[in-house]
């Protein structure tokens, strides 16, 4: 509880410094909406319902539903992730990680809570809207358990994404090189935002077991579809999140012990 309140204060602190530049915040918010919409635009333009009615049998509404689902996990992840992209530069090479190690708190939590992408919250709302809008066109009815599943799987998806990037960030402890994990790897997530069966077996295997982005949106979303065959993977989502978190935490802890503090 005390720990929670400390990270609450970290958040407040960030909010204060963020609002010191409020125009900046609005610009970022608009930029985020552009990003969200341009991602959506690709699907809307591609599966226009006329020349292209479906993606290998997955209707426009289904594809958009999955895409909306991914926005929830992604919004959680994006909010927490800005420091992970630049972790190598900002913390390891510049040596800012020294400061993190000098405080009686968990190092990973400090790094995650020192900076937020608040503007990503915008895409959370777009995602939720998209789910209910396309859900209605697909004739879905949402009960209490469905809402609970949405919450649990959304958080699980956020954990999976964050874990993958924590794992990548912890490589910075070992390699002095600047890692190119910013925008490019981010686009890897795209795989998890489409119906898994459109990919071949190798890719499906990778998305299930190596970089488990299929658990970010596709598998948990199948809970709402009447398409059989995905039940096990669908409800394994929280389990996968736990595994990812464990692996990431181990990699991180090992990385910290290899930290060389070359900065200064």
């Amino acid at each position: 509880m005390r720990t929670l309140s400390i990270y609450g204060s970290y958040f407040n602190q960030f909010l204060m410094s963020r609002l010191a530049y409020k125009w900046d915040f609005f610009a970022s918010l608009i930029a985020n909406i552009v990003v969200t919409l341009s991602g959506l635009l690709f699907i809307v333009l591609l599966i226009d319902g006329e020349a292209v009615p479906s993606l290998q049998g997955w209707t426009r509404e289904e594809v958009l539903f999955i895409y909306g689902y991914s926005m929830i996990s992604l919004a959680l992840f994006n909010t927490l992730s800005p420091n992970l992209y630049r972790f190598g530069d900002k913390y390891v090479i510049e040596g800012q990680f020294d400061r993190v190690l000098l405080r009686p708190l968990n190092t990973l939590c400090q790094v995650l809570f020192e900076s937020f992408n608040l503007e990503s919250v915008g895409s959370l709302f777009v995602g939720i809207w998209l789910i209910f809008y396309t859900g209605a066109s697909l004739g879905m009815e949402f009960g209490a358990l469905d809402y609970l599943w949405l919450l649990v799987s959304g958080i699980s998806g956020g954990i999976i994404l964050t874990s993958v990037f924590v794992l990548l960030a912890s490589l910075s402890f070992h390699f002095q090189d600047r890692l190119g994990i910013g925008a490019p790897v981010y686009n890897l997530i795209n795989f998890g935002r489409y119906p898994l069966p459109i990919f071949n077996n190798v890719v499906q295997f990778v998305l299930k077991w190596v970089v488990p982005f299929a658990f970010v949106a596709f598998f948990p979303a199948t809970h709402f579809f009447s398409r059989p065959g995905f039940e096990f993977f669908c409800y394994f989502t929280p389990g996968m999140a736990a595994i990812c978190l464990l692996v990431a935490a181990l990699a991180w802890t090992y990385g910290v012990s290899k930290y060389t503090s070359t900065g200064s």
Partner: protein
Amino acid sequence: MAKASTGPMSVQAADRVDPIRRAKSVYGAVIRNAFLDMLAYRLRYFTGIITYLLFVSVHYFIWTAVFAARESNATINGFTLPEMVTYVSIGWIARSLYFSNIDYEINELVRSGQVSVYLLRPVNFHLLLVAQAAGETLFRLLFFTVPISGVILWLFPVELPASLGHFAWFLAATVMSFLILAEVNFITGLCAFWFKSIDGVMRAKYFLVQILSGLLLPLSFFPGWLQTVVELLPFKTISYLPLQLYLGKVPLDEAPTVLFEQLCWWVALGMLSYFVWRRAVRVLTLQGG
């Protein structure tokens, strides 16, 4: 200030001059250094190759799914499946050449305050950054584009260019793509003079260029009104038009007009970036750097 009077230590400190930090006065040297810097960050290079492959893969699968259960020679909006696979593959290969990190570099220079150092030097800041980006592109050509092309051409059924002439025009157009995108990135990077963080702006630009340049899907997939909008913007000359040359959708005798259009946009964007740069310098001097 205390350093001058600290006896033996200051001597040793003076001996520790980083040999890598050489004066970057000549643009040629800048290109060479950028090249060496890229080599130094070898992990970024390896992860980059894999990432590109994944980029192409995801779109390959999407397009295969789009064409699923159709005749093998069916066209959608003027493209057959083999054409689309070629469009996507060659599009990304070309992107590995023309993209640059100028916006990111400017942002870093502004954040660290080093930008004022550049202003004091008798070099053209704009030219310097473009030269540096060109050095990186040269690096990528050898160590990135060549292997990634090999892997992509091996994995996916990519068609050869329509003709040797088309290919030559395509290459020339790709050089222009580099120059045009460099201006777009330069202007994006200059936003750092006004905003505390331009991460959002850079990301928005990234996605906008991706979709509006036609890298993700050809302009013929856009609805009519959007096509009109895109026609009025420079982005289509970065990816869509060069790819039309590669695929032979533009006849050879019309190829010069494509390059002329690129040239016009390059000049226009160059003027815009000069204008924005003048204003940015004023912001910097007002704030005192």
